């Protein structure tokens, strides 16, 4: 702030740095702990080892959970991307009535507390006999991650000049040809970002999955169940792998958006 005393500035810097430390230090501490040789969670670790990674990769139940998580995230994120992408396009370009209402409905999973979505899906799926089924899991994961796709692609379609599409149509291109040759080549950085966000969201989802997955185990569900029972250092290795995965995915998004000269990650996050 203009004219503020050096003391005020120092106090503000201290408060700001404290905030950043509060946000990030827990994550930074987990990483070295995952290479600890000890069973107890002491920091710093007495000596280094890879035993918790070996436990994780050597445990068929963890491996199966990881495979289930990947399959669910892959299918549901692509479904959310396709359905959400088409809908985002229809909402921005369409002229039909009730668009605000439809958009509000699509964004609802973001507003409705996840625990309520979990209970509603539990009761609803139980009613039609799909509780504990793979189909039920895919349905739930798809609708839960439509909002993030809509947020990213809604902005992308809005910012894309409609006249470019109109030129293509006036030259006789069909809609699907225009989509493939005009829209996608221009919007693909946003499409990629939307897909990554939906994938991360699905891969990390735990509440709804815990309620409706039945005998299926995903990585977060297994992690959550283990954490409630006891503190097992294998979780530290899982957590580190998840942090690494998130950093890589976000770095890929940031790189692609920057290359395309698109809005930054911050604008993407705060656009909603």
């Amino acid at each position, binding site marked *: *702030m203009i*004219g*503020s005393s050096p003391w*005020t500035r120092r106090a*503000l*810097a201290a*408060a*700001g*740095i404290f*905030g*950043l430390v509060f*946000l*990030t*230090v*827990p*994550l930074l501490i*987990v990483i070295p702990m995952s290479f600890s040789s000890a069973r*107890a*969670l*002491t*920091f710093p670790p007495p000596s280094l080892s890879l035993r918790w990674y070996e436990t994780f990769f050597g445990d068929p139940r963890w491996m199966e959970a990881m495979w289930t998580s990947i399959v669910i995230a892959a299918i549901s994120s692509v479904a959310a991307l396709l*359905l959400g992408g*088409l*809908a985002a*396009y*229809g*909402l921005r370009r*369409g002229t*039909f009535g009730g668009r605000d209402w439809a958009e509000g*409905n*699509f964004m*609802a999973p973001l507003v*409705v*507390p996840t*625990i*309520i979505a979990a*209970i*509603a*899906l539990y*009761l*609803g799926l139980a009613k039609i006999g799909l509780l504990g089924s793979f189909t039920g899991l895919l*349905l*739930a994961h798809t*609708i839960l991650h439509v909002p993030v796709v809509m947020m990213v692609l809604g902005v992308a379609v809005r910012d894309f000049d409609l006249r470019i599409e109109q030129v293509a149509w006036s030259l006789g291109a069909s*809609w699907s040809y225009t989509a493939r040759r005009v829209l996608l080549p221009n919007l693909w950085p946003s499409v990629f970002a939307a897909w990554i966000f939906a994938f*991360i969201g699905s891969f990390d989802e*735990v*509440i709804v999955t815990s309620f409706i997955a039945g005998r299926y185990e995903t990585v*977060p569900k297994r*992690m*959550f169940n283990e*954490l*409630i029972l006891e503190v097992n250092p294998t979780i*530290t290795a899982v*957590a580190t792998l*998840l942090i690494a995965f*998130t950093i890589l*995915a976000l770095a890929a998004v940031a790189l692609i958006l920057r290359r395309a000269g698109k809005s930054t990650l*911050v604008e993407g*996050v705060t656009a909603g």
Partner: protein
Amino acid sequence: MRSNGFGFVAPLLVLMIVAFNVPIIYMLGLGFWDKSRGFSLAPYEALADAPVYLRVLGNTLRISLIATLANVAIGYPLAHWMRGLGNRARMIAIALVILPFWVSILVRTYAWIVVLGNAGIVNRSLQWLGLTEEPVPFLYNELGVTIGMANVLLPFLVLPLFAAMIRIDDRLLQAAASLGAPARTIFWKVYFPLTLPALAAGTLLVFILCLGFYITPAILGGGRVPMISNLLDTLINQIPRWDQAAAISTILLVVTLLIFAAYRRLDRRASGT
């Protein structure tokens, strides 16, 4: 586009209605339905009569309020400090706020077990400094749950607040300074009022998210700090009392939507659209 575009929206609309709207309406209905009598308010009457529900509700409101206030106390100075940073430092700070935002809530909650445990870094530091003989019990109580929730939700406050702060024109502050206003006056009379809509919107958003929080109380509370969500889990998965779970869910949903409506109004004003 030659049609009115409804065809693009229709597939998702059908899926949403079948897999989201109908289950929610069905759940709301369960709270008003009795197999033998038809329409009934019995589940709601049962809620009013059971002190345990009121206690959990009181717990949830108190913890949510404290976690939200802690968020404001940490988040406002952080966002304000980030606004004054140089370009490079600011990008790093933004990345450090966004990264935790995308890391699994489970991981972030688990990290606090490692940090706050009896042999964790905080307790070891306190003991080394001679501030305490015995380890301070941070975990499996309300303190731990509150710290964990404040941490998980901080980016939800900081990011929109920061976005509102960088939109404030520096010339406004310079104008105030050139008219002789001291720094304190500039902050309270010019800067703070301009950030108030975003601050209020962010605060409401964090509070809503707190009300429905499930994972952090379950893990850091160790079953000793029940909040509404954990009560719902018990009523669905352990006791089976679906009618009461439906009644509590309805109340939580209505409260959430009311606060969300207020949030939308403030957020529109904050982003000037």
